[in-house]
């Protein structure tokens, strides 16, 4: 684990515990996201990655601490955390299907900073074409573009939380998403959950690996991806491809 001084981390998660009903989903999850670049949150299905992102924003009840740019936001309501400069792209996109593309973007606008419509339309030209279309009638790929665009729109965003942007998309769209991700990460620090290793291995700077609600590995991306045995052990795949769901044998093997 890098021991970068915490005041250099943009996001610090400290001892996060999340319970859903009576299930203990996250166990003392702690990690940091440094300023700049892409930090990838990895792990098998059910490892708790989405819950972690939701926990950071306070969308689920959690214990522990969350610090954004040194400031403790644990008790802050979700909308206030977001106003401090966080862009969120949820797992199932959550675009408002009854609203048009333009209205979806308008809703995402925040004061304090510029609205980067030029950049958004440059990266996602199809959104400009479909500006007046109801998003419910758009394809999954187009909705994903919109969800990413929403997060990119505000120049005031210092952190992007992105949950499985390539999921369910055809391969050519996956590539587009990867390209968009890289561009976005040049501008804004990004914490991305991704199961598609072919996308993430090239662009991630840091990785945090979860298994069954616990952090089992954290460090520079190269450390993990250059080590096929480690990659296999932690994520169940050797090279490219998607992280396989855990089977009883595999999870036993990873128990530390």
């Amino acid at each position: 684990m890098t021991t970068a001084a915490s005041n250099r981390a943009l996001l610090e998660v400290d001892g996060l515990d999340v319970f859903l009903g009576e299930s203990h989903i996250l166990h003392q999850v702690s990690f940091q996201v440094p300023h700049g670049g892409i930090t990838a949150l990895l792990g098998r299905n059910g490892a708790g990655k989405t819950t972690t992102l939701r926990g950071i924003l306070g969308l689920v009840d959690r214990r522990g601490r969350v610090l954004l740019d040194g400031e403790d936001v644990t008790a802050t309501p979700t909308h206030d955390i977001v106003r401090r400069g966080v862009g969120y792209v949820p797992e199932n996109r959550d675009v408002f299907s009854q609203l048009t593309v333009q209205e979806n973007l308008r809703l995402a606008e925040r004061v304090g900073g510029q609205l980067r419509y030029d950049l958004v339309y440059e990266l996602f030209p199809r959104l400009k074409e479909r500006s007046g279309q109801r998003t419910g009638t758009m394809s999954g790929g187009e909705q994903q573009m919109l969800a990413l665009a929403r997060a990119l729109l505000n120049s005031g965003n210092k952190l992007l939380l992105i949950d499985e942007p390539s999921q369910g998309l055809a391969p050519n769209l996956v590539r587009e998403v990867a390209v968009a991700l890289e561009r976005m990460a040049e501008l804004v620090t990004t914490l991305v959950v991704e199961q598609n290793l072919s996308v993430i291995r090239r662009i991630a700077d840091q990785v945090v690996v979860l298994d069954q609600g616990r952090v089992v590995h954290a460090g520079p991306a190269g450390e993990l991806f250059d080590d096929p045995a480690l990659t296999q052990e932690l994520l169940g795949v050797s090279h490219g491809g998607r992280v396989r769901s855990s089977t009883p044998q595999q999870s036993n093997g990873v128990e530390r």
Partner: protein
Amino acid sequence: MTTFLLLTITGLGLAGLYFLIASGLSLIYGLMDVLNFAHAAFLTIGAYTSWVVASQMSGGIPVTVVFLVAMVAGILVGTLSAVLMETVLVRRLYGEHVGQILLTVGLLLAITALTRAIFGSDPLTMVVVPPWMNEVTVVFGAAVSNSRFVVIAAALLVYIGLMAFLKHTKYGLVIRAGVENRSMVSALGINVGHAFTLVFAIGGALASLAGILTGAFFGTITADRGTSLLIFAFIVVIVGGLGSIRGSALAALVVGLLQQYANYYGIIGMGDLIVVALLAVVLLLRPQGLLGRAVA
């Protein structure tokens, strides 16, 4: 033919009243998941406030002015009550849906009873209604009370206004999005609590307007009118779909007209029964109503 016309216009008038009550209810339930029984209380508050204001105004003033002033007063007090109710009471039970329903039930009972205690159980004549409203206009041979037209016109204006508000203002956008997915709206940095207060205010304003208009429509006001209209408003909300203004308008038309026709052309009481049956049928077959999102 004249009977049919009379029935139709009365039906449209009732539809207008139902729409005024149901539209606010629909927004509140659509956005907040709160089944607001106290909505009927806003109607009562609006009606009785306007009665009080009108009776206080001295004789020299033209009746139409008195009516307008009383109406504005009723709407203001109704809106204020709604805002107070949401911020002081309903908000405390955020997330507890049964608790919120129970709260609104208790408030409805209390406010209705208090009104009865202060004003008595007998119907009060709406002395404030301008005489031209009670006069009759002959339309294709049918003599229709002008109050019907006033109600229909008011409902139409409100519909246009609401749709414009929802489509063209930022808060309208927030409400439309929130009806679909409240937590995502928060995740975009917007404080949904403000939207909650706003829909309660809108609901209160519209319901209290409906209260005054029922006084014009029926000629009298009673403490129980709100409660008896509420069930039909619920039917309109469910059939029309939660959070959908267009749906509420459509459903109001269906319910209002169907009720009139069936009550007259069928056995007495059949219209009410059919409408109630419609609610059950829609809930069982298509819980999301004609146009709106899923109920539960």
